[in-house]
């Protein structure tokens, strides 16, 4: 029985308790009180041992996970010296790089939009000059029969072209405003970076705790059970998650306006 208790796992606890309880009842019925007390002691110890063994598993698992994690970090430090590209194995760094990249790209797009808007302004200016020429055609129309109707037709074209310029201008403004997505994604990424930094520091604290437990229990860290893959997954599962829409969040600008007007705005 003692040996059984020493290696007791959580899964076997109920069976063992049942078995011991039945034995206890029989022993008491037989009047063997001394043995009954012994059994109660064993029951106590079984409870203890299960906790103890589970903490041992936890510590061992944690230790392995942290070892895998720190070897990731070590790899990064080593490679940083050799190649700039592999230096970005650190997820936080990579995410910061995404923000940097999208920001740069947004500005480049906006540079082009600005340049295009200048071109649109120039078209507008040309349109003005065109108007002057058109007036001249209007004056000549009366004198030259061949020009009959040309003024009206040219006017139509000019009006269409002015509309096109206006449309172009508003489309360019839309492109400009759509760059705001960089701000939104950037904010989301920053949140994930914060989360990862927290996970990292919590992990270090856990490692410290695990080391203490190790000293107290004397559990061998070398005997890590199979299934390291699963532990790796546990570490790598900290990927970014899309923030689900919170229940209390309003949907769009109309909702905001409605809420504000209900507040007397």
């Amino acid at each position: 029985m003692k040996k059984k208790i020493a290696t007791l796992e959580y899964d076997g606890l109920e069976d063992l308790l049942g078995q011991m309880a039945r034995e206890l009842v029989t022993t008491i019925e037989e009047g063997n009180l001394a043995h009954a007390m012994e059994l109660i002691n064993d029951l106590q110890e079984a409870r203890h041992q299960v906790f103890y063994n589970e903490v041992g598993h936890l510590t061992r698992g944690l230790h392995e996970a942290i070892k895998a994690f720190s070897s990731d970090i070590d790899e990064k430090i080593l490679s940083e010296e050799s190649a700039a590209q592999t230096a970005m194995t650190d997820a936080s760094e990579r995410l910061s790089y995404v923000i940097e990249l999208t920001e740069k790209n947004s500005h480049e797009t906006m540079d082009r939009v600005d340049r295009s808007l200048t071109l649109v302004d120039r078209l507008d200016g040309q349109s003005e000059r065109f108007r002057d020429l058109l007036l001249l055609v209007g004056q000549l129309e009366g004198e030259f029969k061949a020009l009959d109707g040309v003024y009206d037709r040219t006017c139509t074209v000019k009006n269409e072209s002015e509309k096109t310029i206006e449309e172009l201008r508003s489309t360019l403004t839309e492109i400009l405003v759509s760059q705001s997505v960089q701000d939104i994604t950037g904010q989301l990424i920053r949140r994930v970076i914060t989360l990862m930094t927290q996970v990292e520091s919590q992990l270090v604290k856990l490692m410290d705790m695990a080391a203490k437990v190790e000293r107290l229990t004397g559990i061998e860290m070398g005997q890590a059970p199979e299934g390291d893959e699963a532990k790796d997954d546990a570490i790598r599962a900290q990927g970014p998650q899309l923030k689900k829409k919170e229940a209390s969040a309003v949907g769009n600008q109309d909702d905001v306006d409605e809420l504000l007007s209900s507040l007397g705005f």
Partner: protein
Amino acid sequence: MPGGLCLVKKDIRILVVDDFSTMRRIIKNLLRDLGFTNVEEADDGKTALPILKQGRIEFLITDWNMPGMTGIDLLKTVRADPELSHIPVLMVTAEAKREQIIAAAQAGVNGYVIKPFTAVVLKEKIEKIFERIT
């Protein structure tokens, strides 16, 4: 251009506060479209305050979520300062929780635009604020 903005002096000094330069630039360009060219920038509440305290800013547009000092704290500080409390404040932010909008309203915000926004919405809110103060 709608009537509301025609009455507003175009040379008023506007401060745009956002930690993302992309967003500052977008707002600045939209303001330029509306005829406002006198625009200053700051990247959070902390850098905005010294500019505000110089005393020439007449309109403040701010984000909410910024490192250092947030937009809501900036709004509260502005409202608590007798020198600055008169400045109209428009909040342009991705924060869209009811409680946040209510908190901003209680802190004395003049308008609230959620990101992502359209040029039309931003212009409309700016016009509305100027309509009220003129």
